[in-house]
């Protein structure tokens, strides 16, 4: 195969390499792309890097303490109840308040509280309506989505804002493809017209994402604004309730 023909084959398989790395390529396309990768060191290296990134996506999931009794049930199934007791005796240390707070971040406690509330049957965990008939939003770890809105600047969409209720209300601000760079402040305006500062975050080359607790009721928030360090409103989002 000539160099040009080989490069053309690489281009032909470029899209499929991504899907192969994600494990979602099937049938004849999968067989053909695998055959190409076998004969092309450059695409083999590309596939390895893409697969590394694809595998790492599941790593973003938060760590959550399993329910009470999880270990007892597991070790019993593994026939390790005695080993567990012996390990505990050798490694036991007093669980001081400092060790606990270091081991369990605040948000995990919030998540654990949601799990406990779920276990107690307080109603957290039901499913809500779907936008497109696919996976549906659920309440639980992240709370119910209350409102959403596009962040716009000069008529263009430059990001999004979502607010969540539940155990502790919070909001997500995402900037993408904006002209923002540097430290910015997020503010929300409530029904009574009062502006509340939520906090500051840093946008880099137009991109930034930020999660923060809301100290006002998310149901009362009508508008969110991203403000530059000089006090200029860079982008605004009118929030609409999520049905």
């Amino acid at each position, binding site marked *: 195969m000539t160099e040009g023909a080989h490069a053309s084959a690489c281009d032909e398989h470029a899209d499929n390499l991504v899907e192969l790395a994600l494990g979602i390529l099937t049938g004849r396309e999968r067989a053909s792309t695998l055959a190409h990768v076998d004969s092309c060191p450059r695409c083999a290296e590309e596939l390895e890097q893409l697969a590394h990134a694809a595998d790492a996506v599941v*790593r973003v999931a938060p760590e959550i303490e*399993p329910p009470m009794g999880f270990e007892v049930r*597991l070790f019993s199934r593994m026939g390790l109840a005695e080993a567990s007791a012996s390990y505990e005796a050798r490694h036991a240390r007093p669980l001081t308040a400092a060790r606990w707070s270091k081991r369990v*971040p605040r948000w995990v406690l919030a998540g654990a509280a949601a799990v406990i509330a779920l276990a107690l049957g307080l109603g957290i965990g039901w499913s809500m309506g779907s936008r497109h008939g696919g*996976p549906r939003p659920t309440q639980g770890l992240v709370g119910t989505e209350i409102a959403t809105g596009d962040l716009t600047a000069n008529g263009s969409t430059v990001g999004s804002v979502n607010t969540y209720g539940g155990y502790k209300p919070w909001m997500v601000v*995402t900037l993408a493809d904006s002209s923002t760079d540097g430290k910015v402040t997020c503010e929300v305006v409530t029904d009574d017209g009062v502006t509340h500062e939520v906090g500051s975050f840093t946008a880099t080359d137009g991109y930034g994402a930020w999660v923060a607790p809301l100290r006002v009721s998310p149901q009362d928030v009508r508008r969110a604004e991203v403000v530059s360090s000089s006090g200029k409103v860079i982008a605004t989002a009118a929030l609409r309730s999520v049905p």
Partner: protein
Amino acid sequence: MIDGGSTDEALLAGMAVGDQAAAVAFVRRYQRRIFGLAYAMTSDASVAEDVAQEALLRVWRHAPVFDHRRGSVTSWVLTITRNLTIDALRMRRAVPTDPDDFAASAMMSLEHNPEDAIGRGDVSDVMRSALARLPPAQRRAVVLAAVYGRTALEISEEEAIPLGTAKTRIRTGLIRLRAAVEHTRQTEEER
């Protein structure tokens, strides 16, 4: 001696030869990550516990066949968990967590400035940061594909978008995530 400070590989090797202390230490190291992944995907504590128990049992049984040349222990364990969760959702006809909520739960655990994550070189935080920077439509498509195993065709149907758009979102999103991971790897190598 195997203890809580041993590497993942050492604990797995210990489990492979029947060292019970290694198995206990491994379970205590990984149970929060495994349960966390299953819960983030299902929003159902009962399903998540069943999946987490089964995942740890499989790791324990299959420890002798783990091949470190094919990837890290963490990737292996979380892939087992992910696949079991997909199976559990399918078998129970349960409703999975919406991809936006899955991503939001990940972003909640990124407490610091995303720039700090790259400085620390922690793959989980780097990926959380990179995922947070993706445009929402790309983030949703990548989570659907990488976490829930949806094909481009399934994503196009579920999201009511053309197949070409679904493919573009998946491709552009994953390439951006790869750039973040590779940037961290290069930064580590330069140190």
